[in-house]
């Protein structure tokens, strides 16, 4: 009987060694006995210590990661096999159990080749065996030998004293030397010489920082003759300056410097450039406080030329995250760092994608992050939710422009997926024309959701109302926020809908203070920490922040802190909500590491008594905040 599928398997295998050394009818015999295996991302083909299978494998599509697990439960990647690569060869060579674990790195299809029939047809083919031995040796070769291993992780190993300093408030120079913006460069230079300093801040009449002059500015602009020595400081200063509030940590300071590629930060009274200068933080100050930092990772990300490099940088961030958690670092700081890294990864992925595009973007655009990335709360890898806003174009150019950005969106999501951010299952990504629109269309979209609220709008609001700018023209994002707040003025019903949605998951405690665990089959007896504890807080924070018309605060914990500042009556409640949120994200992340997933479901049984108590304490604020919402938005009778 005919078997066309065997022929297709044959067509594929014949291109790759060792199969290309086999005779056609022999290979066809093998092809007929092959099994085609479909694997989802994360599926394990065999585990270290498993007894050997009667087959070995060839990757047809996708990629398979081979790793071994050290005694400390660290996973060390040995090889990533993709199209045409062989793996699981050990049973061919030795009758012993597997030494490595093979896991699907992405959605993959592999061919399982039965060993007995392969042996039979290739028995006396030396070429085949030579190849197999080599392939086996390379797959098993572990580039990270013991000493190198420790070198690789040395940056991230717990070094308590250093890391605690890292989260200290930065030790900046108070009362920095300044010069007035009308003074001449010569006067400024004399001041710098007298104080033996390498830079001077230029301030206006109200002591607000307007620019900065460094040694290299003088070298590049005066010594070269571009400007005369008595020129106004305004002509040669770098402006504007980047400002921070005074309680910033060393980590934040350094991240900002790497982000803007600068060496000096101005500390001002309220953190913006519109208030009085009170200090300067230099790169030197930062280096003096510490040695190794996540900025290493950020630099690596900025320099990455390929997605593969980005992936390895992002994986390092996971190690960093893990060690921070183990050391009980403040979760707020951890979240900030990871959010920075995630944004940097996205920015770099966009830059790489832009290079791949056939031409430059036709108009300016902004890439926005949605959902948890938009709230800057992503710790572990989660789904990617993103969108593109581009400038308005004439009607006849619209289709072409949108197509361009959708194409860009596709490239970026593809590489983000490679890096480890899974595709959004609801397809809320910039690669979807629905979420890649002009600023006017976006405004209309949001107005429609706000004014003609239906279930669909509420469903989407939890993702789309938490957008934040990642790349491109930031003013587009601000424009959209402004328009949203304008529209919100016109209605109060939308708030009621959001309120009802925020109450859909009541506090997760049942009778006798039992945890409300899942009742359905798959997740029976597991506690869904995301839906039952985290999301109610996220929803409540969003609603209150929208109602108070606060812009630019996206993180749930920060939102509650901000609310605590402005609503004195509920101050304590908001603070405890912020605390509960942080504690819950930490729980989720730790569980995620433990089980190598998103940490969404918690097995209550595995928690210690103390952890259970801690978790339970987080539920009270959820209950209280929901009561506040009920009263404030009059939701008792709103169904």
């Amino acid at each position: 009987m005919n078997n066309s599928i065997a022929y297709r398997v044959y067509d594929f295998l014949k291109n790759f060694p060792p199969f290309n050394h086999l005779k056609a009818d022999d290979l066809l015999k093998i092809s007929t006995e092959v099994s085609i295996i479909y694997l989802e991302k994360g599926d394990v083909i065999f585990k270290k210590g498993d007894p050997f299978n009667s087959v070995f494998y060839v990757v047809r599509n996708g990629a398979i990661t081979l790793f071994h697990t050290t005694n400390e439960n660290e996973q060390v990647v040995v090889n990533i096999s993709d199209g045409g690569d062989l793996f699981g060869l050990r049973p061919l060579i030795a009758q012993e159990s597997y030494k490595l674990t093979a896991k699907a790195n992405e959605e993959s299809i592999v061919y399982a080749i039965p060993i007995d029939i392969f042996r039979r047809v290739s028995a006396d083919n030396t070429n085949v065996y030579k190849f197999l031995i080599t392939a086996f040796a390379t797959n098993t070769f572990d580039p990270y030998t013991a000493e190198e291993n420790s070198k690789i992780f040395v940056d991230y190993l717990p070094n308590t004293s250093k890391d605690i300093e890292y989260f200290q408030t930065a030790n900046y120079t108070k009362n920095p030397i300044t010069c007035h913006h009308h003074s001449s460069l010569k006067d400024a230079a004399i001041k710098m010489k007298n104080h033996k300093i390498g830079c001077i801040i230029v301030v206006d009449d109200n002591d607000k920082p307007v620019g900065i002059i460094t040694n290299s500015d003088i070298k590049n602009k005066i010594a070269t003759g571009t400007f005369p020595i008595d020129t106004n400081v305004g002509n040669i200063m770098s402006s504007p300056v980047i400002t921070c509030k005074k309680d910033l940590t060393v980590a934040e300071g350094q991240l900002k410097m790497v982000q803007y590629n600068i060496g000096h930060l101005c500390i001002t009274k309220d953190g913006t450039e519109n208030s009085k200068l009170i200090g300067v933080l230099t790169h030197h100050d930062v280096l003096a406080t510490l040695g190794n930092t996540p900025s290493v990772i950020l630099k690596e990300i900025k320099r990455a030329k390929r997605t593969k490099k980005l992936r390895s940088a992002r994986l390092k961030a996971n190690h960093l995250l893990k060690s921070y958690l183990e050391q009980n670092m403040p979760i707020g700081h951890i979240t900030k760092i990871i959010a920075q890294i995630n944004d940097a990864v996205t920015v770099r992925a966009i830059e790489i994608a832009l290079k791949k595009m056939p031409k430059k973007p036709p108009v300016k655009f902004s890439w926005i992050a949605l959902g948890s990335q938009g709230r800057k709360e992503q710790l572990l890898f989660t789904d990617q939710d993103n969108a593109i806003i581009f400038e308005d174009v004439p009607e006849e150019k619209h289709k072409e422009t949108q197509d361009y950005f959708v194409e860009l969106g596709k490239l970026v999501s593809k590489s983000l997926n490679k890096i480890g951010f899974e595709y959004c299952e609801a397809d809320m990504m910039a690669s979807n024309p629905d979420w890649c629109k002009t600023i006017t269309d976006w405004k209309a979209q949001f107005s429609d959701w706000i004014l003609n609220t239906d279930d669909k709008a509420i469903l989407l609001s939890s993702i789309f109302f938490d957008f934040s700018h990642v790349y491109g023209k930031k003013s587009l994002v601000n424009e959209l926020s402004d328009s949203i707040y304008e529209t919100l003025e016109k209605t109060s019903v939308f708030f009621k809908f959001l309120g009802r949605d925020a109450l859909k998951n009541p506090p997760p405690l049942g009778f006798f203070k039992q945890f409300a665990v899942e009742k359905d089959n798959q997740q029976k007896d597991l506690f869904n920490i995301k839906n039952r504890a985290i999301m109610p807080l996220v929803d409540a924070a969003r609603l209150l922040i929208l109602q108070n018309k606060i812009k630019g605060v996206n993180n749930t914990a920060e939102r509650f802190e901000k609310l605590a500042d402005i609503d004195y009556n509920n101050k304590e409640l908001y603070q405890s909500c912020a605390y509960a949120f942080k504690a819950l994200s930490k729980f989720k992340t730790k569980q995620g590491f433990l089980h190598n997933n998103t940490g969404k479901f918690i097995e209550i049984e595995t928690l210690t008594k103390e952890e259970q108590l801690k978790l339970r304490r987080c539920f009270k604020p959820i209950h209280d905040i929901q009561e506040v919402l009920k009263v404030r938005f009059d939701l008792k009778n709103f169904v």
Partner: protein
Amino acid sequence: MVWNWFFKKKKEYPDFWLDYLAHFKKKKKSDIENTRFVAFDTETTGFDKIEDRVLSIGAVAIIGKTIPVNDTLELYLKQDVFKAETVKIHGIIRNGSEEKISELEALKVFLDYIKDAVLIAHHASFDRAMINNMLVRHGMGKLKNHFIDTGVLYKKSLHIIYKDNTKPYTLDYLCSELNVQPIDRHTATGDALITALVFLKLLARLDKRKHLNWGYLLNR
């Protein structure tokens, strides 16, 4: 009529039909992991369920996430009805080189192959009707197997906000959406393999969303 029906029931069925029915006698409920699925496709002389005839049947089996290549089926049928205009789609000509068998022979092999597997097809109602009409022409009953339509399943897998009832979800569309290479499209076996891969990818999607149970899969 009633008498007629009564006699029909008593009439002698061929052994292979009785063997096929026997698979359904014992009621066993197995989990999705260990169930044998068979994805199949028919190439026909046209789309008229009564007039047109099946030219070839292709089928592949799925157990767990594995498709064993040595457990596939590829049948070419002798043709009484021939339509030149569909040749350009399926490429099967009346006196082609493939070894052809009679309809009855094909049914025999097909039933023995599928047994009580859950059948999967794209736009399943057509393929189901084609096989059923074949069975009826030869004096047997209709297929007893459970059916899953990948088109329907795909629609179910979509997020509620993207459901579009007006869109016909073709196999080509699913291929591009789910990133399945359309190799050997429009041959029965090629389409059967494509349908199988589409099915596995959909299962994975559903599994992630915890929809994976028999009730969800089998009810339209």
